[in-house]
């Protein structure tokens, strides 16, 4: 066994404890359960009927006719309630599990007949503050839209008996196309935005998970060495500092890789559960083998930078407890481009912000995940070169620190500074 393999083996044994394996499994189970539950709730919200109660205080022929027409719509489950007032009607509606109560006031029918604006009171019944709860309450507006549409069609029919009401109400029917990467694709800009969001959010999430785990592993490993006072012994072994660093980073990478794969499998299932079955695909926005290879290199280099940075920060940890907080600067550097790119694109960012983002090495795989979709290879290759240089410089600094007293005395100097 070489010295490198020996250190690598020790690192994996030290880091991959029973507790860690258990916590990994718990997280995966959580993702699977949460994904299944959320998927079912979303499916119900999309495909299920809107449950609405209606109180007709007008009692006119017109109001009854409209009530029947609303009730005959396939996506509405209408319950007509009889009550003396709104409060009583609301209690009844709540009992029927309705999401909203529509109240047709007195004089409603007359106003409709005269083609005047008629009021309809809409009471959204909110049972919780969850996204799904409020979403179902807003669906009461669907019923209003349906009533408006029915009445508008009737008015048009009266005015233009020989015309199709829909062609008068919506004279223009748009047919959406998207011109991207030199090819024309059928689809709306909204659909492409959601597709891009789905594709470009995955890389930052993978990167965040991998960097946080790998970085935490390296820093924890250093913290454990310092806490258990094993680092001093290890540094007096007949093995080069470079081998020790490589072994520690390698061991942490193996453990982080296992953790990332397990977590991502869980996260992937969770995301899959939330993806609607009718989502679109666009061949022009798919990546080829070279694109994936470039993205892989970019991701690998970003992780390498994170590991080297974590190793450097780990030198300043005193024990496993202090090591937990040492990962914060790395996490912040990942979060900045993550949020910046979530709300804007690098092509439209102000120069100062763009400079900050380009300076952060972790931005580049996130940028690459978008740039590759649009065939912008220059920015991807530039990012790869930048990260290679960045990690090489970090590596040299880390080896230098390990060859100096600082690896032993870093704690001392920190204390003095306080």
């Amino acid at each position: 066994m070489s010295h490198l393999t020996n250190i690598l083996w020790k690192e994996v044994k030290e880091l991959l404890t029973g507790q860690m394996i258990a916590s990994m499994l718990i997280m995966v189970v959580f993702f699977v359960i949460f994904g299944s539950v959320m998927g079912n709730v979303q499916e119900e919200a999309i495909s299920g009927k809107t449950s609405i109660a209606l109180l007709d205080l007008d009692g006119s022929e017109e109001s009854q006719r409209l009530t029947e027409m609303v009730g005959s719509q396939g996506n509405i489950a209408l319950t007509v309630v009889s009550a003396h007032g709104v409060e009583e009607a609301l209690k009844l509606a709540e009992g029927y599990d309705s999401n909203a109560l529509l109240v047709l006031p007195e004089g409603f029918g007359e106003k409709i007949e005269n083609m005047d604006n008629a009021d309809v009171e809409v009471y959204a019944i909110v049972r919780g503050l969850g996204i799904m709860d409020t979403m179902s309450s807003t669906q009461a507006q669907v019923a209003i839209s349906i009533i408006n549409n029915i009445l508008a069609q009737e008015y048009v029919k009266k005015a233009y008996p020989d015309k199709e009401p829909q062609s008068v109400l919506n004279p223009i029917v748009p047919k959406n196309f998207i011109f991207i990467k030199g090819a024309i694709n059928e689809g709306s800009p909204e659909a492409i935005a959601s597709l891009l969001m789905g594709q470009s959010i995955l890389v930052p999430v993978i990167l965040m998970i991998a960097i946080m785990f790998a970085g935490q592993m390296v820093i924890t490993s250093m913290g454990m060495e310092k806490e258990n006072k094993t680092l001093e012994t290890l540094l007096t072994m007949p093995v080069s500092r470079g081998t020790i660093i490589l072994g520690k980073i390698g061991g942490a990478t193996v453990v982080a890789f296992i953790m990332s794969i397990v977590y991502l499998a869980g996260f992937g299932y969770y995301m899959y559960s939330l993806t609607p079955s009718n989502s679109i695909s666009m061949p022009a926005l798919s990546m080829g083998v070279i694109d994936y290879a470039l993205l892989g290199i970019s991701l690998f280099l970003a992780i390498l930078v994170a590991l080297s940075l974590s190793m450097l920060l780990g030198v300043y940890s005193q024990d496993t407890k202090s090591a937990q907080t040492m990962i914060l600067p790395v996490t912040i550097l990942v979060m900045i481009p993550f949020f910046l790119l979530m709300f804007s694109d690098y092509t439209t960012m102000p120069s100062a912000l763009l400079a900050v983002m380009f300076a952060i090495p972790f931005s580049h795989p996130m940028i690459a995940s978008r740039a590759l979709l649009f065939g912008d290879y220059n920015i991807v290759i530039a990012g790869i070169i930048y990260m290679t240089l960045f990690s090489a410089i970090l590596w040299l600094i880390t080896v230098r620190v390990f060859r100096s007293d600082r690896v032993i005395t870093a704690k001392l100097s920190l204390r003095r500074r306080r």
Partner: protein
Amino acid sequence: MIAISVEGLEKNFGGVKAVDGASFSVSAGEIFGLIGPNGAGKSTTLRIVSTLLQPSNGSVNVFGHDVVKEASEVRKLISYLPEDAGAYKNLKGIEYLNFMAEFFAKNREEREQMVKRAVELSALGERLNDKISTYSKGMMRKILVARALMIKPKLAILDEPTGGLDVLNAREVRDTVKRFAKEGTTFLLSSHNMLEVDFLCDRIALIDRGRIVETGKPAELKEKYKAANIEDVFVEVIS
């Protein structure tokens, strides 16, 4: 043959002078003790000899190799046991010994021989198959001493080798040190247990505020200062 040669050694930590012009030499096969109170510069000196820290001034040679310029050569000859050292808690005792032996052994046979020696030295028996996190302080020190000596180093550097041990365990460690010294290993150790040093060391150096204030054989020093023990010698020298 000179095992360790320290000349005008100085070590500064910012404005603090931890070692201030220390000079001494240790012959091969000798048990040499650095004696002094807490913060006197014992551990810093041992760390410099162990290649962990670099001297601010002066020179340190181990069997003719400079600890700064030829650190990798020095590391092949030494075995260092830090004060209050621990071991990798998630490894089993036997895994830890194998891990450490791997750095020195040229082949599998040699590694097995080293581990076998450590198993005998530690006398932990079946407990070596348990995780180190379950070990008591005495057991931990035993496995660490065994680790330090299993490679039969030319120079063993032990910082407070019996620190925190009970009488019986401390005695076992002292006996082991004596036995290995007879077999040719040179020892540089530190202690603030003056009675232990009196019993164990061939020669000692008294260190105070980073300076070597006296060097000699325990018996000669006691005679020189007409003292009953090394503790009295130390008090006499310091005053």
